[in-house]
């Protein structure tokens, strides 16, 4: 090593001078000054001439690659080599298949919104047809009401809580009827619990088990017509077990009432009326609050204010 820590083989080497000499040789100048070096450069060019490679094959491959890019925008897959380092090697779709972020967001929103819209459409259609379950029908009807649409609430199909049920015919099997002013039901069969407050004109009812009509008129065949305050005009009652009409009027052809506790009725031809003291046919225990007037406007059969019973 030299005193200046320069390797001996680099002493006397000036890179700028060497560069200038080589540039001059490559430009065809200064051959006389560097004859050996000039001859080496010539030999190097002779040994490796600048001949074109298999250009036909290469150009065909280049044309194919260029055509592929023109068709798809980019190659489908990139080579795993790192020969071109700055360019990412991950494969990408062709440019025409790429989408911006806005397109992707819109697609995601559509994917989310489409099922929701479809669900609302189905609910709306089924709700308008009243085909939904009761709770869901209520919910749908309320939701539609907010926007001004009138959909059935789901209560129309049941006999419960009829406020003004009139003229039903041939009802069968209603389970629980709580009509306040049920009028004119005919041929009801199998009602188990009827609490008509002003039930009027029911005909040919059969098999009602518990009737609590406040002004029952014309019920036939109630099994437990009790607490009817103004029961009027029952006709052809058969098999009523306990009638507690407060103002039973014009019951006709009652048969087999076991515990009739009618107040003020007019039991004419009363058969089996619980409170009748006359014309008792099969009544087991009649409790009459007024025993006068039996037969006309009488209340001898327990109907305190009954009028017009002429067949009991």
């Amino acid at each position, binding site marked *: 090593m030299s005193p200046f820590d320069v390797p001996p*083989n*680099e002493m006397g*080497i*000036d*890179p*700028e*001078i*060497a*560069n200038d*000499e*080589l540039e001059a*040789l*490559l430009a*065809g100048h200064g051959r006389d000054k560097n004859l*050996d*070096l000039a*001859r*080496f*450069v*010539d*030999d*190097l*060019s*002779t*040994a*490796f*001439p*600048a*001949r*074109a*490679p*298999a*250009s036909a*094959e*290469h*150009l065909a*491959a*280049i*044309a194919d*690659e*260029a*055509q592929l*890019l*023109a068709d798809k925008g*980019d*190659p489908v897959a*990139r*080579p795993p*080599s*790192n*020969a*071109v*380092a700055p*360019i990412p090697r991950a494969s990408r779709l062709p440019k025409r298949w790429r989408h911006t972020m806005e397109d992707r967001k819109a697609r995601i929103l559509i994917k989310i919104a489409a099922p929701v819209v479809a669900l609302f459409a189905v609910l709306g259609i089924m709700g308008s047809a009243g085909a939904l379950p009761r709770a869901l029908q209520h919910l749908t009807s309320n939701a539609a009401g907010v926007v001004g649409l009138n959909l059935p609430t789901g209560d129309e199909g049941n006999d419960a809580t009829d406020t003004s049920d009139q003229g039903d015919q041939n009802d069968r099997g209603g389970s629980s009827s709580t009509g306040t002013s049920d009028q004119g039901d005919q041929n009801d069969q199998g009602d188990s619990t009827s609490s008509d407050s002003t039930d009027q004109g029911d005909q040919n009812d059969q098999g009602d088990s518990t009737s609590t009509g406040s002004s029952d008129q014309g019920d036939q065949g109630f099994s437990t017509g009790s607490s009817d305050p103004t029961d009027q005009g029952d006709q052809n009652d058969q098999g009523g077990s306990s009638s507690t009409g407060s103002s039973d009027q014009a019951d006709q052809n009652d048969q087999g009432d076991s515990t009739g506790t009618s107040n003020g009725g007019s039991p004419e031809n009363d058969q089996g009326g619980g409170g009748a003291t006359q014309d008792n046919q099969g009544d087991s225990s009649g409790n009459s609050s007024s025993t006068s007037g039996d037969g006309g406007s009488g209340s001898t059969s327990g109907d305190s204010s009954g009028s017009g019973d002429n067949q009991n």
Partner: protein
Amino acid sequence: MHEPLPEPLREQFPRVLAAACAGGEWAWRELYDAVAPQLTRYLRARGVPEPDDVVGETFVKVVRYVEGFEGDEAAFRTWVFTIGRNLVVDDLRKRSRRPVHVATDEQLVKGAPHGNAEDEAMRDLTTAHVEDVLAHLSVDQRDVLLLRILGGLTIGEISLVVGKNEGAVKMLQARGLAAIRKRISAGTVTL
């Protein structure tokens, strides 16, 4: 005499490059003819077994990534040489893991019959002399000098290709030239 380099495209280069980006086959032919011969001789001098294949692979990559290229003709030539050199480096790494002896084109040409025996003998001597001198250079020195003499690149362009600064490239060039002079003056090789 030093072989002249292909005629550069100069002011026509931007138009040719734009046409090549649009897929013009004629434009690719122009670019290929302007760069491929120099790249091929550089690869052959480096001892690449299949230089033509490397050149073809290099231009396929150029076609793929040309849309992202920006620059003049010199920058384009530097870019092409960078791709080709990186391919050679990758190939050498693969071969170092799984060594496979492949006869180079030069070796095959030496064994094949030719028309003029005297010319063949002179060319063989020249090639042997050059290879012997190059063998006494380091890999980096040989790379820089081959790029400079056969590739026709400037110091700045070589620095981009090999990934070194210009001072280091100049020093490698100067050391390489000094080693060549020393080898020739020693008289071990008869020119």
